[in-house]
Each structure stands twice: as C-alpha cells, then as structure tokens.
C-alpha cells in the first residue's frame, strides 16, 4: 500500500514534469505557420547582409516572418523542386528557365543585378590584368597553369564559371583546380590563403575586400553581368506552399521600397552600390 502511494506520487511528478517541459518548449516555436515564409536564396545576398535589411523591412510592413535559407542557387532551386521553399531569389538564368518550364515555378521576374569579376593575387602570375574579355582572361589562367579556386557547388556563380570554361574549351589541370563546395565568402577566403584566381560576384568581393589581398583583375560588363530573379514556387504543384505569404513578399521585392533599399545598400561604405535595381519584363 505504502509502495503504491509512493509510486503514484512519482508518476504524478513525472507527468507534471513532462507537462512543464512541453510548456518550456512552446515559446518561440508556437505554430504560426501561415506567418512563416521560406525563402531559399543564394549566399551572395545573404553574406552581404542585403536580404536581412529587406526582410526586416518586410516584416515591419506585413507582419510575416521570413525564414532565409542561404544556399547556392543550385540548391535553392532544388529546394523549390521539392516544394520545401515558398519563394526563390536566385541567379542562374538557365536553371531558372528550366525550373519554370517544368512547372515548378511561377512569375519568374528579374529585378536586380550586379556583376561577376575575376579576382586574383596582386602580382598576377597569369597576366590577366586589364583583359577586356572574360574568356580571354580564363584562357590565360588555364594556359599559365596558375591555381584556380572554384565554388564547385552548382551555384549561380559556379554555373557561370562552367559556361566560361566551356566557351574557351579548356580547363586548368585537376591539381591546379580546387573545388571548395562552399559559399562565396569561404571560397574567397580560401583563395586568399592559397593565392589563387577565382570568379566572384562583385558584392561579396567588396564586402570582404578589407580582409584580403586579392584584386579585381578583369571586369567584363557585357558578359559577366549577374541577374537576380525572384520566382514563386508553384502552389498548384505543392499545396503546402505558403502561396499568400510568398505572393506578398514577391510584390514587396518588386516595389519602390525594395528599389530604394537595394540602390542605397552600403553605397556610402563602398563608394558604389553593391546591387542595382532593374525591373525587367516578366519573362514567364
């Protein structure tokens, strides 16, 4: 009898404890799913901090909470194909077109750009400084057997780099070609340690410039322009997508508000804007 009461008491305590535990876990993760929008995006807009500014503004205006998942464009598009994201902000035009054509995405709109630059060590062993064309510079890099650092992660930047190698029909030898499999910033930092060449978006390079000894050696305004698009994940295909929230975020990204933020983002700090806003006609 005595044992039994003791046992009941313990059971009671145990249940009470579990109850308290559930209470403890609840704050911060209450189910407010309709207010959450999952944005899959590239590392460049995240690492520079631009997306934080945009999302904060959006949160104040609309009350929606945006979950930013910063991966390469390739992986972001994969998340879209799995229906795991509500909206994508990416820069990989060919993949984007395919994504929409296959019925995964809606309303793809290009709204922002910056450009890629070819970055390398100060002493420039490949002699590409001042090259006017990106493919010229890439050819020299491959021919002079200098180290080249690649993202190797199917991101927009990596895709661009691959089209350049295809264009010049050559590639550095495998021991001179390092694939990091990481984001833009880690890749630049690694290239800085190894004194290698790489293709980077200008925004990420500028935000790291003070910490590294690599220089912009080749700019090609025409061929290296880097367009960012926003795409809604098709809610007809994935009913669980937060279509309403994604649409509101979509409209916000195409608004005057975003234009002002993008054009002025860190302009004073770098003496030039990191991104340019340019709304193009909706292509799909």
């Amino acid at each position: 009898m005595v044992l039994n009461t003791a046992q009941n008491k313990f059971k009671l305590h145990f249940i009470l404890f579990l109850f308290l535990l559930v209470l403890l876990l609840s704050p911060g993760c209450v189910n407010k799913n309709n207010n959450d929008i999952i944005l899959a995006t590239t590392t460049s807009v995240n690492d520079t901090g631009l997306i934080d500014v945009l999302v904060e503004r959006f949160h104040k205006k609309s009350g929606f909470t945006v979950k930013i998942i910063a991966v390469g464009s390739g992986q972001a598009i994969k998340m879209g194909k799995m229906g795991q994201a509500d909206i994508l902000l990416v820069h990989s035009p060919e993949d984007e077109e395919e994504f929409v054509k296959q019925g995964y995405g809606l309303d793809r709109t290009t709204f922002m750009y910056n450009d890629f630059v070819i970055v390398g060590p100060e002493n420039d062993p490949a002699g590409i400084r001042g090259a006017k064309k990106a493919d010229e510079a890439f050819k020299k890099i491959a021919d002079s057997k200098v180290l080249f650092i690649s993202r190797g992660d199917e991101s927009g930047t990596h895709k661009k780099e691959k089209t350049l190698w295809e264009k010049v029909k050559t590639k550095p030898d495998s021991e001179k070609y390092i694939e990091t499999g990481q984001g833009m910033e880690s890749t630049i930092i690694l290239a800085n340690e190894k004194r290698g060449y790489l293709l980077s978006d200008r925004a990420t390079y500028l935000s790291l410039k003070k910490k590294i000894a690599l220089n912009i050696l080749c700019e090609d305004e025409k061929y290296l322009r880097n367009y960012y698009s926003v795409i809604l994940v098709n809610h007809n295909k994935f009913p669980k997508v937060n279509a309403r929230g994604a649409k509101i975020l979509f409209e916000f990204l195409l608004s005057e508000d975003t234009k002002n933020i993008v054009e002025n983002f860190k302009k004073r700090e770098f003496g030039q804007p990191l991104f340019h806003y340019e709304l193009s006609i909706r292509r799909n």
Partner: protein
Amino acid sequence: MNFLLEGIRNGLDLILNKDVLFILKTSLLVSISATIISVLIGIPSGSILTIKNFPFKKIVVALINTGMGLPPVVVGLVVTLFLTRNGPFGFLNWLYTPRAMILAQVIIATPIITGLTYASLQDINPELYRQIAAMGATTFQTILVLSREAKLSILAAIIAGFGSIISEVGAVMIVGGNIKGQTRVLTTAIVFETNKGNFDIAIVLGVILFVMSFIVNLALTYIQLNRVKQIRI
C-alpha cells in the same frame, strides 16, 4: 590608454549585443531541452536493458553502442528527409524550427545516455536486482532504485550527452538552417562568421560557448561531488 578602453568597450558591445544574447538563449534552450528529453528516454531504457532479458538483447546493446558514435550530419540529413514538407512528417512543419534541432539532438544524445547508463548499471551487485524483485517491485520502482544506486555514473552520462550536443554543428546547421533570429545557435554562428572572415566575432562566440559549457558542467559536477561527500559520510 584610450584605445585599450575602446577595445574593451567594443568587446563588451560585441558580447552584450541583442543578437548574441539571442543566439546564446537559443543554444541553451535547444540543448538543455534535448538533454532533458534524452535523459527521460535514455535512463529508463538503459535500466530496462539491465533488468530485463529478451531475445536479441545483445544486438540491441550493440546497436546502442554504435549509436553512441552516430555522425551528427547523418542524423541531420535523415531528420531533414523526414521533416521536409512532402516527407512523412512534413505536416508537423518542424523543419527550420528549434523543435527540429531539439529532435536531431535528442537522436544524438539518447544513445549516449542509454549506453552509459547501461554500462554503469552493470557495476551494481546483481544481488540487488534479486532483492528488489523479491520485494515485488514494479519495473518503474526497480528503475528508480537502480538509478539512485548508480546516480554518480548516470550524472556522468548526462554530462556526456549534454557535451556532445552543445558542441555539435552539423545536424543543427542542416535541420535549423542557421536562420538569423530563429535557429542560429553558437556553433552555427561560429561557422557563419568564420566563413565571412569575421574571426574576431567568431572567437568571441567560441569563448562564450566554452564558458557556457563550463558553467553547465560545473553545476553538474558540483551535484556529483556533493553526492560523493554524502556517501563518504
């Protein structure tokens, strides 16, 4: 002198900044919750393994011992696949929330706590089980008596479990997504800042992680040592 004061002030700003405090809070909330849940599962499981005999028991024990070395990234990957919107548990909407991180950490810590509990109960005199059984105790009561007997070793198991998850980065990175203000914890923040070349912030976060881990372990060790004293008396 001025630059020294300024350096200290900048350092303090860095520590007391709202973002860092949030990261600290998330780290503690996630890992302590995960430890508590793992203890609630692990200690009874370890005890039941000790007192009950069932077919394939050796295989189960071997599996748990393997689980003690489970690679966190693999746990993260599997949890993600289960929790993704169109996965089997997608309806929970847990991916990229602290809940998913707690779940992943529970999966990492539970085998450790179970395994170490099981190991520590092996040292208890088997006569004790027979005595407890002879007095007609239920399984629940047996577990209670046993865990009181082995409380020091079990406390060590809890410390090991907590230590393995507070310092873990792979799984929480994958299932949490390192979202600023939501799922960013100390370890993922350190990776993020190191990638950005912000070594100063990364180091400060590293020191915070170390100090925090030390304080929690100090508290647990105090309990452990106090118990030792009681036993000696």
